[in-house]
Structures are given as structure tokens and as C-alpha cells.
């Protein structure tokens, strides 16, 4: 499995610009570059491939300014400024990578590493789970420096089947809290305590299932350290076989969320939301995120079943089963008229199947009694 792309790496063209906006200029690492009113320094720098490091940043969320890794030198400012929360202004002169700035970033990473029990985590934990370890490698940060107390406190007792709350690896970036509030609107988790004692909590510090959590899994996928992890995916931890991702559309409803199916050999081991999915922008619901066990369930029907005279279901061939269904429909039509039939297409069926169903009901039976479960 290739390391997950950092969330903010939008593959945009540095020269592309939103239409109808005035083009302004500033100096970025000695080069005059253009930007648009309302952009932050970070956004400008990213568009120009400056690879400014971040840990608390998620492009879908309001800039927060916690990790301070994205600090840059701004001419005239006494201290470096956080590029994610600072609006670009015409005439600014910015340096993104001075030796002093890079040293601060390294020290910050060493501080973050020191508060945790380890930074190497299985990529199965979540989409963004490798962000911290990737940055630590990139900066050659010393993982043994600044030793002392550890900050987070895992809640393994929260035995829900979906989300592992391994806060020993938490770095208090609050991406989970913010994505829950800003993207999902659940406000299920929040911040308790302060300073080094800060913990992610639910109402009254209870279990997720007793909170407003809908198990959409967005907190898991935005976590940059794997402190929140996909329990279903972790069932495949340590198994043989390379992980592969295949982009597709979630089949549960009509929204059309883009997902990456994570497979290992011929097994589906996880579903991850596509951060660049036009309909979902990284969001999923509990079903799209976690309800995929049916795919490989041994109880799945592989042949049609017909209830015989003995009252029991028996395996049958397709031809017989379809004939039996057709007979039933025709009987209903004869005895009770065309409006006795009502068809509901499954939200998990593709558009073509939904089209075929309504065509069949309308022209075959002469009724408009049709619906689709995604309508609700």
C-alpha cells in the first residue's frame, strides 16, 4: 500500500485560478507569485508545492493553528506566523524553509513524539494515520529527545465494533473533534481538561455508543497518528498480502460517495472515504464506512430459493425461480388489477437497474406505483 497522500495535497495547477477573482502578488521564497483574495499563506504555499508540514490541518476544516509546524517567516513580523491561519496580503515577503524554521519544526516533532508511546502504526488504522511518522522521517527527528510524561490515555474499554480509541497515540490536534462538529455536525466528542492533561472526551466521559456519535468514522480517517483507528480494518493486521486500494462509489444510497476499497489478495479488509470524492469530500456514514462484512459472508445467497409444498425453502435454478415470480405477478394482476403492484428499487442497485425496474413496472403493468429507498 502506498503511503496515504497527505490530505491537503490537492493536485492543482499552480497557475489555475478561480474565475473572476483579482490576482494579487506576494514574494514566496524570493519568487514573486500570484494569489487570490481570501487565500491563506499556507494555501498559496501549497499551490506552489512548498510542502509546508502540518499535523492539525485538514483542508475541509476551519484553520486552527495548533501544531505550529506550518510556521513561516514573514518579513516585518517579530515571530514566525502560522501560515494556515494567516491571510495572504499583497506585498508580503515570506520564507517557508529557513534553517531556523526547519529547526523549530524538527524540535516540535521531537516534542510531539515524546508525548506518545510510539509512532509506528499500521496503515490499516486509517487514511491519515501515517502523517506523523512520515514527517518524523522527513525531518530526521530524534525520537528519544525530551523524554517525560506521556499525555493521552487510551480508552480500550470502549468496546464498540468500529472505532478504537487509542489515545496513548493522541497528539491533541483536535482534528477529530473539529471534523465531528464541522463536517458531520454530531458534536459527539469534545476536549476535556487543559494543557498536557487534555483528553478527547464524550459527554460525561462515556462510551461512544452512549453519545451523539453516529459512527461515521470521519474522526478515524482524519487522525494523523492512528490514535483513532478502524477496528474492522485492524482485523487484517498482520495478515499476509499487500494492501491495494480501488476507487469506486459506495453502493448504499443515492448520494454517490467515493470510496477506496482496501483489499488484501482477494479479501476486502477496509473501506476508506475518498478525500477528493466530489459528493462526500472524505465523509461517509456508518454503513458506507463499516458495513461491508456481507461481501464475504458465508451466509450470502448464491442460488435462488423457492418455498415448496413442505413450507421450506429449497435451492432452485434461475429459470424456475423467475417463472415462479412471473406467475405470481400475473396472478396478482389478473385478480386485483394493475395498481396491485408496487415496486421499490434498492438504493444499492445501480442507476441502470433502477431504470429497468421502473420501465418494467410502467410498461409491463401499466402503473406508476414505483419508488426508491434512497428517496427517504
Amino acid at each position, binding site marked *: 500500500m502506498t503511503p496515504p497522500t497527505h490530505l491537503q495535497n490537492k493536485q492543482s495547477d499552480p497557475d489555475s485560478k478561480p474565475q473572476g477573482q483579482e490576482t494579487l502578488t506576494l514574494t514566496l521564497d524570493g519568487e514573486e507569485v500570484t494569489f487570490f483574495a481570501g487565500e491563506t499563506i499556507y494555501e498559496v504555499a501549497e499551490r506552489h508545492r512548498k510542502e509546508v508540514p502540518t*499535523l492539525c490541518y485538514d483542508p475541509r476544516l476551519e*484553520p*486552527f*493553528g*495548533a*501544531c*505550529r*509546524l506550518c*510556521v513561516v517567516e514573514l518579513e516585518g513580523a517579530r*515571530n*514566525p506566523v*502560522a501560515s494556515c*491561519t494567516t*491571510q495572504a496580503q499583497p506585498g508580503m515577503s515570506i520564507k517557508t524553509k529557513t534553517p*531556523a524554521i526547519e*529547526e*523549530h519544526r524538527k*524540535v*516540535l516533532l521531537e*516534542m*510531539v513524539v*515524546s*508525548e506518545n508511546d510510539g509512532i509506528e502504526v499500521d496503515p490499516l488504522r486509517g487514511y491519515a494515520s501515517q502523517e506523523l511518522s512520515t514527517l518524523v522521517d522527513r525531518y530526521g527527528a530524534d525520537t528519544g*529527545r*525530551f*523524554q*517525560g*510524561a506521556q*499525555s493521552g490515555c487510551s480508552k480500550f474499554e470502549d468496546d464498540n465494533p468500529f472505532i478504537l480509541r487509542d489515545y496513548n497515540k493522541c*497528539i*491533541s490536534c483536535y482534528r477529530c473533534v473539529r471534523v465531528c*462538529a464541522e463536517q458531520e455536525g454530531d*458534536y*459527539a*466528542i*469534545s*476536549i*476535556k*481538561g*487543559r*494543557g*498536557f*492533561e*487534555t483528553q478527547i*472526551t*464524550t*459527554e*460525561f*466521559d462515556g462510551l461512544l455508543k452512549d*453519545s*451523539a456519535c453516529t459512527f461515521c468514522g470521519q474522526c478515524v480517517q482524519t487522525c494523523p497518528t492512528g490514535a483513532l483507528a478502524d477496528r474492522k480494518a485492524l482485523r487484517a493486521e498482520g495478515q499476509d498480502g499487500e494492501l491495494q486500494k480501488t476507487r469506486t462509489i459506495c453502493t448504499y444510497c443515492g448520494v454517490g460517495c467515493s470510496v477506496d476499497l482496501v483489499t488484501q489478495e482477494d479479501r476486502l479488509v477496509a473501506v476508506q472515504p475518498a478525500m477528493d470524492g466530489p459528493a462526500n469530500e472524505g465523509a461517509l456514514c456508518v454503513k458506507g464506512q463499516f458495513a461491508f462484512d456481507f461481501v464475504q459472508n458465508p451466509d450470502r445467497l448464491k442460488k435462488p430459493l423457492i418455498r415448496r409444498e413442505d413450507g421450506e425453502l429449497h435451492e432452485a435454478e434461475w429459470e424456475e425461480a423467475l417463472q415462479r415470480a412471473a406467475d405470481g405477478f400475473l396472478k396478482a394482476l389478473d385478480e386485483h388489477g394493475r395498481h396491485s403492484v408496487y415496486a421499490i428499487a434498492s438504493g444499492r442497485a445501480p442507476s441502470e437497474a433502477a431504470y429497468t425496474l421502473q420501465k418494467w413496472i410502467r410498461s409491463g403493468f401499466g402503473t406508476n406505483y414505483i419508488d426508491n429507498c434512497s428517496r427517504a
Partner: protein
Amino acid sequence: MRSLTDDEILESLRGEPAPLLPILHAFHDRDGYLSPEALKVISKGLRIPIADLYGTIDFYHHFSTGEGGHHQARVCTGPICCLKEGNQILEALRSQGATPMPCAGRCDDPVVVLKGNQALLGTSAENLQPRRSPLPPEAPTLEGFEECVFAHIRSPERSQFAGYRSTGGYNALEKACSQLSQEDLLSQVEASGLAGRGGAGFPTGSKWRAVFNAPGDPKSIVCNADEGEPGCFKDRALLDHDPHAVIEGMALAAYATGAERGFIYLRYEYPETYAILEQAINDAESNGFLGENILGKFNFKLYLRRGAGAYICGEEGSLLNSLEGKHPFPRNRPPFPVTHGFEDLPTVVNNVETLASVPPIVLKGADWYQCLGHDQNAGTKVISLSGDVNKPGNYEIPIGFPLMHLIQDWAGGTPSGKRVQAVTMAGLSGGFLAGEDLDVTLDEPCIRSKGSFLGAGGIMVFDETRDMVEIAHQAMEFFAEESCGKCFPCRIGTRRLSERLGGHAGPGELTQWLNEVEALGQTMKATSSCGLGIAAPLISDSLVKYFPEQVENHVKS
């Protein structure tokens, strides 16, 4: 008296701006703690997600979630109370559920213990008594310096409305409303050179003008009375003994800027001050100096809000978030409160002392105020002096006044004449000054040239018998406990520095120890998002600078 029902509490406060804190306090006072049921009622009533509310009340030191918690003693273990009997009193009361609290702003008094809404003072667990906070000591009259905010504070009854009126109170507001346009008032405050006395030193007139010019209504005036810096207790003296001066300053700010509502955000640890202010606001309102149609000119409704124990709420962004009922993290700047303050509308946030300085400036003129300072410095500054001095207290000095003159001649020097080993600046935030650097004048340019800053003017004095590493450790532990937890360098850095100063973790070899402490400090100073993380390393830096031998002994042991 029958206690209020849940609905009565909610109904009485829900319509006011900034309702969360007073509602929480009403339940806390009524029930003796914040029960889960109370939180659910408040969450529903104010439409705040219950997880957010639960997390946010936990941020504050003084909200109890255990039954009876509100009435359990909290004993001050701030730097000065630790030099006195703070720890002994805490131990004596621990079996009754007492817990430590950070500096509660009575460093010129015996040790302070909070029980419910009462502050008790004493030298042992047996002699704790309520007592009024001390008046500022008289400055030596021979030297001929004129005071500004303390000029009338020792007049009898000055804290009452009648006493304030009879000593020239509200004359400035009457003068402004009858003789000065908004522009006149703004110009006068600008010309006076008055700058923020909470520590940041931003020119007050410029701030007011920015709010006057900013679009958006209603505008607000916020008085920052969340005096949480250890060793600072000047705002308490002003509010206890001259509350109307601050109210009049706020009304003048409202008149100048067009603000219609105001808030005094008072720290939790001053319950008696809360009662004094409540009375003063009522009296000012019933006499027409607050409320509707003040002196025929403007409307200004003033609300009193009580914090709940969080040092960071003295930072204006945190304070505004706290007022709004949000998690009290600092805000990213820009935008600044002058355009995006309370409820994202233009807001003046001024310190108590700044606001109290305004009425005398309006009455006596900008030039008069300018000339109060020493040499080229404008105005006065209240210094809260505590620790190893014979006469601790609040002294209003001309800006530019020599530090050692204040300590030796005004405050009577150290008890038994011991040598001054070090002082802190800006409470704790400015770190230590020691040795030759004690020979400074009390103005920002001079103090900053030594790598420190004057800030809110808290100065703690430590004589030669004190263990400076231990004092530095206590200071850093304070910052670690009060760090809000938002930005990484402060959240982690304060903890790591405290561990190293306390000997709980870190290298045992001196060069490595110094290397780590310096690296942490440099990155904290450069990258922290607010003043707490930027200032905290001044403690460790100045310790290493002035006391290398004590540091070496500490690391070796």
C-alpha cells in the same frame, strides 16, 4: 429564601448576552456542584452540545462536578503563599477535601483559602477569617509624585456611590457628555499616551478609535478583570476600593466608541469584589450613569460576569470565547477584537487599571497625564509588590521609576535586611531579574533591554535565602497547569520544562540538560500561538542566565 428552579434560572438569564457563565454559577451556587442533570438542562436551554459543555466546564479550575465540591476549601499555593504557610494550611485541611489552587491574587495578605463564595485569610488552618483587601500603602509624600488611579482610593467611602460622587466621581463623564464630542474624547485619550496596563501596552486611544471606526453593531466594552497572573493583585485593589472609577472609565469608552453593552469579566477568586461590583453597577444605573439615555447622550448596559478559574482567560481571545460560552482557547489573530471581538463585533478589551486611568485624564487633561511619568515616560503604573519585602502592596509609581528605590525605600527593603537575590517581572511571565540587572527603571524599554518585560506590573521579591530552582519549578508548573492545550509548543513545552526544573525527567548530564531546555525555550518563544507559551521560557532562560551554579547543583543531584 426559596432557591430558584432550573427554569427560573434559565429564564432569568437566557435573554442576556453572554449567559452561559452566570447560568453555570447559578446552578453551581444552588446545588453545590454542577450535576449531570444540571448540565443536561443547561445544554438544552442554551442549545450547547452536551459534549462541548461537559468538556468546557472541565477546563475551569473551580467548577466542581462532585457533590459538595463547591464548598470544599481551595488553598492558595501560589509562589508567595508557598513562601508563607500555604502548604501547611493545605495539608491541615486536606482531610476535609481541600485542594490547592494557583495564586489567588492576595499576595499582600496572609494565605488565602476559598470556601464556596468566601475568601478566608490566615496564617494557619485555625485562624482563617474573612477580611477586606488592604488599601494601597501610602507612597512617601516627600518625593512629590502624583498618583493617578490611586489619588482618591484612600478616601473614606470612595467605594460607595455617594463617596465616589463627593470626591469628584462621574464628573469626567458629565464633562464628556456636556463638553466633548466623541472625536474630542478619542483625541484626548490618544494624546495622553495612555497604553494598556494589563501588560500588552497597546495605545488605548488607538484601540478606541479602531472600534469607533469599525463597522458592525452593537459594539462592546469589555473590562478584563481576570487578573490571573501570579503576583498581580492591583485590579483587585482598584475594584474593591474604587469600583466606580472603573465603571466610569467603561462608560467613557462606551461614549467614545458608540458601544452599547459592556462586560466586566472578573476572576473567580474575588468573590467579595463581585459583590462590591454588583452593588456599584446597580447604584450607577439607578443614578443614571449606566443604562438608558445616560446624561441625555447615550445608552450603555453593563453586565458583570464571573470567570471560573483559568489563567488563560486573561488572554483577550480566550476571555471573549469564555464570555461567549465557547471553549476558552485563545483566538487566532488577526482579526483582532477591535473588529471581531465579542460575538465577532467590534469590541474594546481594556484592563481595569487602564479604564480607571481614563476619568482623571478626561478631567485633568492629556498633558497632565503625560507629565506624571519619570523623564520621557507617560503616566503611571501600579506595581504589585510582594514576597520578601517589609511592606508588600500596590504602589502607583511614575513610569521610569527605579526598581530598587521602590523595593528599598518605598517598601522598606527585605525583612531583616537580607540581600535581594532576584525579582520576577510581569508576575511570572517576565522571568527573573537578578544581579546587576536589578538596577533597572520600571518602564518597558529598560526592562525589555534585559530580556524581560514589565507586563501587568507584578513584582515578586526573593531574598538570598531562597532556592531559585525550586521557585522556577513552581513557576513553570503553574504555566504547565494553566496552558490551555491548544498549541503544541506550549502544551508540551511547559510540561517538559517543568519536569526538568523539578528533576522528574530529562538528562542527568548538564550540557545535555541545558541543550534540551534551551531548544524547548527557543521553539516555544518562536512558535507558540499566544503570550503564555512565548513568555513561559523566560523563567528557565533567566534562571540559567543568572543562577548557573544553582542549576548545575540541581542537575547533578
